[in-house]
């Protein structure tokens, strides 16, 4: 295949065209990120009246702190569960809708709906449904299974609650991409396989899933970023990181220590670590997972 090349006569023009995007990246990403790195080496009172350079002390304190290591573990459990559940449920729904001849449009609209709900509103909805004092679900669980649901006290209940809320929010987005991916798979391939005697499962594993892999890979990256950052509002509205920090994920801890506790140095160090985790994860995904993707 021949590569297309556009030759610019003017050497300055490409830079000029890139300038707005570069400016936005510099102002909204590089500059604040630089500030965070700088802040992470300082110890400062809330008002910024006295500042001391403390080197790596903020970082060392974090790794000596069992609560931070707990938050790391909580984040891993939360992220893996949310990503796997939201991807697989969305895929099942997309497969179901893809087979529909009529009313597929209606179902698609209904399934995309939750994505339009702001995370904080979604959080409040789930808080309401699961509320141990006034919620409907704890009441039903108690009546039918005799299970005493209390996410104010039981860490496992709280974790299940935030995972459900996050998954519910993310299914719509994943569903939309999976559906588009499925519709771009030529029907002839599947029909040919069917004529060759391959059953529905065989066809799914050997044809549909491999051809969906670019979509799946893209969603994997987006979902990991989602669980690490965008789930803040859900946690804030449902559990507030509790009980006893059972749902205190890294990004929530950054907020809690920085904006509630006013410990800016530690909070900045945590956000730098979080930034590095995302960089490493994205690198690994592109380096290793992408090799298995067929475009």
């Amino acid at each position, binding site marked *: 295949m021949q590569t297309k090349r556009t030759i610019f006569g003017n050497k300055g023009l490409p830079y000029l065209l890139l300038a707005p995007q570069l400016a936005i990246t510099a102002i909204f990403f590089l500059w604040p990120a630089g500030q965070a790195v700088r802040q992470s080496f300082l110890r400062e009172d*809330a008002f910024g009246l006295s500042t001391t350079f403390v080197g790596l002390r903020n970082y060392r304190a974090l790794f000596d702190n069992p609560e931070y290591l707990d938050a790391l573990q909580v984040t891993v459990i939360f992220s893996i569960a949310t990503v796997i559940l939201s991807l697989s449920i969305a895929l099942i729904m997309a497969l179901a809708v893809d087979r529909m001849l009529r009313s597929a449009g209606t179902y698609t609209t209904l399934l995309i709906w939750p994505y339009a709900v702001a995370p904080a509103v979604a959080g409040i909805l789930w808080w309401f449904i699961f509320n141990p004092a*006034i919620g409907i679900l704890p009441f039903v669980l108690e009546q039918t299974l005799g299970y005493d649901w209390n996410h*104010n006290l*039981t860490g496992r209940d709280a974790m299940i609650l935030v995972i459900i809320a996050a998954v519910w929010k993310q299914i719509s987005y994943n569903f939309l991409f999976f559906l588009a991916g499925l519709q771009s798979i030529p029907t002839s391939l599947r029909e040919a396989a069917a004529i060759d005697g391959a059953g529905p499962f065989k066809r799914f594993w050997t044809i549909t899933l491999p051809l969906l892999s670019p979509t799946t890979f893209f969603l994997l990256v987006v979902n990991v970023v989602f669980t690490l950052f965008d789930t803040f509002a859900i946690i804030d509205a449902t559990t507030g990181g509790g009980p006893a920090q059972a749902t205190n994920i890294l990004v929530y801890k950054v907020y809690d220590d920085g904006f509630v506790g006013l410990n800016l140095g530690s909070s900045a160090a945590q956000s730098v670590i979080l930034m590095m985790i995302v960089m490493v994860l994205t690198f690994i995904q592109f380096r290793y997972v992408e090799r298995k993707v067929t475009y």
Partner: protein
Amino acid sequence: MTFRKFAAASTVSLLALGSTAQAQTQIDWWHAMGGELGEKTEALATAFNAAQSEFVVVPSYRGTYTETMTGAIAAFRAGEQPDIVQVFEVGTGTMMAAEGAIVPVYQLMADAGADFDPNAFLPAVVGYYTDPEGRMLSMPFNSSTPIMYYNKNLFAAAGLDPEQPPRTWAEVEAFSRQIMSSGTAECGFTTGWVSWVQLENFSAWHNQQIGTLENGFGGLETELTFNGPVQVRHWENLARWQQEGVFQYGGPGGGADAPPMFYSQTCGMYMNSSASRAGVLNNTPDFEVGIGMLPYYDDVAGAPQNSIIGGATLWVLAGGSADEQRGVAAFFNFLSSPEVQAQWHQDTGYLPITQAAYELSEAQGYYSANPGADTSIMQMTLNAPTPNSKGLRFGNYVQIRGVIDEEFQRLLAGDVDAQGALDAVVARGNALIREFEAAN
């Protein structure tokens, strides 16, 4: 409209805007009072603006206490701070340590030449917000203290005397069991603010030390000590009562699930701020509410002592012009006048901050018309405060409150016993206090 006419019109309107801005000095006031309390707060500013023409106070609601405080601090760092900010009592340590960022109220009043008598204020309220020399640092605005609300109808149905709230914890337990065994309700009591009510106020009420150096009033080198035998015994009981259903937990922080349990008659008794009174009465049209003091263990020497306050004060941030500071002084004098204070106290359930406002409310017949409305004041002034019951002042206390909640949850979940939970609160809290000491 031609361009020329448009330009002329805008010049005129700009001039008009400029002249009004010059005539009145604007005073920005950030507060954290939402809902009904927010309306009452805005009404105070409106009344002040109507009463004089030199200054105009502009109140603006900034979310929760935490959000308001951190927002004001961020604004200060950016040089855009308001003149007045409302800060909750646990933020006092942080604000006090910020010399150079705040203007102490005693200094503000002296600079403005305002007529100001610090002795007019209730000592139990003001004591919380003075420096070691006894000078007033911030202006008390909304102070409350926890009290006990109980359901008179449930008491009667369970065969208890509806006019007699429990006085001791032994009675709380006995009354709860009677309520539960008679089948009138499924739980005895619940509570808002576990940290504030069941640990801090509990300690003061039993004259037990909260921290060294007079509960932190004496300096930043203070250490928490509220893991003593009396507090351990109480937390042990709370955990046991939670197991048996006598007590139901309402969640961390303010305990958002506690009020519904009382309103829906799931629990017969409920401990929370005296400022919840209006809300409690509004939400309980189906039954009569009685009010009592906090319970105590009668075998603890010195109990009951006196309860301590919560709520917020108004801090003046540095950087305002001399005119603005004069305006703030005038506004503070307006707020502490007996008529304004008495009205605010009666509307909201917050404590009156001056002796005169209390006496005025009494003269107006407010307490005889509203039985129980003065319980909070009587409980706070029951005895002269000791070093253990004057209040508390620790750096990073916002986070320590969070630690108290976490360890209490671990206790209720059975992960740790009462001694272990309180020891952990003290150890983790002291680490936070040391961090604060190092940063200031």
